[in-house]
Structures are given as C-alpha cells and as structure tokens.
C-alpha cells in the first residue's frame, strides 16, 4: 500500500505514468466514469479549504465513487481531543482512501503510519502540498508538451510559499530548467533552496522588478502574499500590492508564455489578464481534478 506525502515520493518515471493516465482521463472521461464504483474517499480536512477539498471530491465522484468526511477540526472528534492516529484508524473502517489536510506539519505522515488505507497529504501547514505540485506539473506538461528546457519565473511570496518550494524541488529533477525568482527583498527565496541550486549547477537569478524579466520567461508562476504569514499588518499591506500582473506587463511576454497561479488570487493578477490565452490558471484548476483522479486510481491500484 502506498501513500502520497511529498511530490518526490514518485520517481520521474512514475510521474510520467501518472500524467499519461491523467491525460487519458481528460480525453476519455466516460471510460473512467465507473472505475471507482463502490469505493469511498474520506476527506479529513482539519482546516478550511475550498479548492483542494472540492477538487478531491469532484475527482472521486467523476470516477463513480462516493465521498464522506469533515471540513473543519471543529466538526470532527479532534475537537474532543482525539489523536490523528485514532481518527485514521476509525476512518480506515469507513473508506478506501483518505485525503487529509491538517494545520500541523507531518500530521498526514502520522496518519499514514497507522492507516489501513492509502493516505494523501492534502496540505500540512507550511510544509507540503503534493497534489498542488502534481497539478502544476501536469498543467505545464499538458500545455507546453514537456517538463524540461524552459525558464520559469516565480513571483511574489517566495519565502513562505510552500507551493513554490515544492514546485522547485520537483522541477530540478528535469533537464535544462532555469529559474528566475522575482520577489521583494523581504520575501526572497530561502537560502537553503538557492544553496541546493548552486550545488546542482542549476542556473537561477533573483530580481525585484517583474517587467525586467518578462521577455525571458516561458512560464510565470504567480503567488499570493498571504496575510496569515505576517505578524505585522503594516508589512502585509506594504507588500501585498508589490506585484500586480496586468495587460501592460503581459505585453512584454512571449506569445507562448503561460501564467500559472495556485489560487486563490487576491489582486496580484488583474482580472483583465483572465481572457488572455496565456492565462492558464483556471485550466490549471481543471488539471487538478484530472491529476487527483489519476492519483486515486493509482493508489487504489485500479486499472481501467
């Protein structure tokens, strides 16, 4: 039995297989419509989430399975002090696979160690969010046709953004990727990541102005500056509007550049960009469902 705790749990070859399956699901959804008949997904969400939880639920429903779970710690026995280990042992009796989000880092790993069913980490604090990374990789591979040979700009909160750290770790396994980190001084990419890139001889640069590098990018990954990461409201207010991607900046970019964003956005991408064919963030949401469908099938070892 396998679990998914980190995007690096899968080898590059296993990811290729997963993405091939996701692309086949995209082309032939009806072929998979009953592949999980009689199976149940438990969504154990100890903190609120719209996109991830609904994406998992949509994925299981699209496969013909059913869904149960809770969407906040208050709605579960955690409120009575039940441990994650006890909860997963119970949930294992009700369902075939579990997606767990928890504000504490490592909670899904604790669950996986005691679980009788596959556990998917659906986000553990600021630590990992592997299905977002799988979504990002599938989106890039599907729309660009490759996961190598490109320059990717990552823009915004590069200090606290777990999706950014996770994506970098996943991309460095592919050939000829160069990174451009675009952030204000206060939200720079952590040293341990740039040290790793140096060790591996992977080219990167750090800049402050987005306009300066737009023409060089094959991909632009925008992120939100998250209010909950700041202790000081003034700093948040000052930094939240640091980058706003608008039509003028898009005019500087290549015709085939793609803009990705893990969503939700606040105002870092102006709505006027939404209709630009290079804006891929809503297609990315759709790929999130396909990749979760492929993941559920893979972890349940169901072949169609």
């Amino acid at each position, binding site marked *: 039995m396998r679990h998914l705790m980190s995007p690096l749990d899968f080898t590059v070859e296993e990811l290729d297989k997963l993405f091939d399956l996701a692309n086949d699901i995209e082309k032939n959804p009806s072929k998979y419509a009953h592949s999980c008949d009689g199976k149940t997904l438990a969504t154990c969400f100890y903190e609120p989430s719209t996109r991830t939880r609904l994406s998992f639920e949509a994925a299981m429903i699209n496969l013909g399975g059913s869904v149960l779970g809770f969407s906040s710690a208050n709605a579960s026995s955690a409120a009575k002090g039940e*441990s*994650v*280990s006890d909860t997963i042992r119970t949930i294992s009796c009700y369902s075939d696979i579990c997606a767990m989000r*928890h*504000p*504490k*880092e*490592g*909670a899904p*790993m*604790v669950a996986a160690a005691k679980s009788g069913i596959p556990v998917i980490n659906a986000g*553990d*604090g*600021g*630590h990992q969010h592997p299905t977002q990374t799988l979504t990002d990789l599938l989106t890039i591979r599907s729309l660009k046709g490759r996961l190598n040979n490109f320059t990717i700009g990552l823009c915004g909160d590069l200090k606290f953004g777990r999706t950014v750290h996770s994506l970098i770790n996943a991309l460095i396994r592919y050939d000829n990727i160069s990174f451009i980190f675009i952030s204000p001084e206060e939200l720079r990419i952590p040293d341990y990541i740039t040290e790793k890139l140096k060790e591996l001889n992977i080219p990167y640069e750090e800049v402050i102005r987005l306009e300066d590098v737009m023409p060089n990018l094959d991909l632009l990954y925008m992120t939100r500056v998250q209010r909950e990461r700041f202790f000081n409201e003034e700093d948040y207010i000052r930094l939240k509007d640091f980058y706003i991607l608008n039509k003028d900046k898009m005019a500087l970019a290549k015709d085939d550049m793609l803009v990705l964003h893990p969503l939700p956005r606040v105002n870092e991408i102006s709505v006027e960009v939404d209709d630009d064919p290079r804006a891929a963030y809503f297609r990315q949401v759709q790929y999130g469902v396909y990749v979760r469908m492929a993941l559920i099938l893979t972890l349940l070892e169901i072949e169609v």
Partner: protein
Amino acid sequence: MLNIGKIEEGFVLDHIKAGKSLSIYHHLQLDQKDCTVAIIKNAKSNKMGKKDILKVECDISQLDMDVLAVIDHDITINVIQGGEIVAKQELSLPKEVRDIYKCKNPRCITSIEQELPHIFCLSDEAKGLYRCKYCEEKCTDVIGDSFLFR
C-alpha cells in the same frame, strides 16, 4: 581524590563534558541494565579542566552507542577486556534518532500529540545535520543542551 577501581570487562566513556554523564546514563538506558556502573562527575582533566567519566561493566555490543555521536563527538570509548584497554571505538552518526532531540517547530504535529516519539533523520552527514521526520525542521539544538530527558 576519589578512587574508583579498574573494571575487568566492559567499557569506559571518557572525556564526557562535565555534568552530562547522567544524561548519557539515561540515553544508553543503563538504568534498565543489571550491571555495575560508576558515574564519575567533575573529574580533573588536563585537556578539559573537568570532565565526567562512565565506567560500565557489561558487553558493549548490548548497547546502542550511536547515540553518543549525536550527544558529544568528543567522547572517547575505551573497550576493556581482562582489565586492559583492547580497543577504542569510533563513533558514527546514526541515520535516525528517537527521543534525543525535541522538535521546536510550533507548527509540527509533535507539538500537539504528546505521545508521538520525536524522530530526527540524518539529512546531511558532512554537516551532522538532522531534520524532524514529520515537519523536516532543521535541528538547531546545541548538542547536549536541550535533549528530551528519558
């Protein structure tokens, strides 16, 4: 000056930082062994000023000595047979340590689930860097300063 006699079979841990011998006694789980142990605190040392020494009369292979590498690199292990030092054992960093370090990340699951063991995995052997198995937080403990007390 206090005198403790020679041991015939066993081992001597020498050059322990003064005051740390009791902690090592617990980490080696010597409290659970039925063997003779002498704990010498604050012995005079030319090299260290003062030091602790542990003399243990039991077969060294019965104990997990790897933990010593994490606690204090400078400890010397003398293996004794027939009352003589027959070998000096090298210390190597264990791949995983359990309940030696305490994870200080307030966002880690170990911060709320008290019964979980605090497990750290060796992530960089050259730097002797350990990371929490659950949250991957770097261990920033100064060796010997904030161990969990068994």
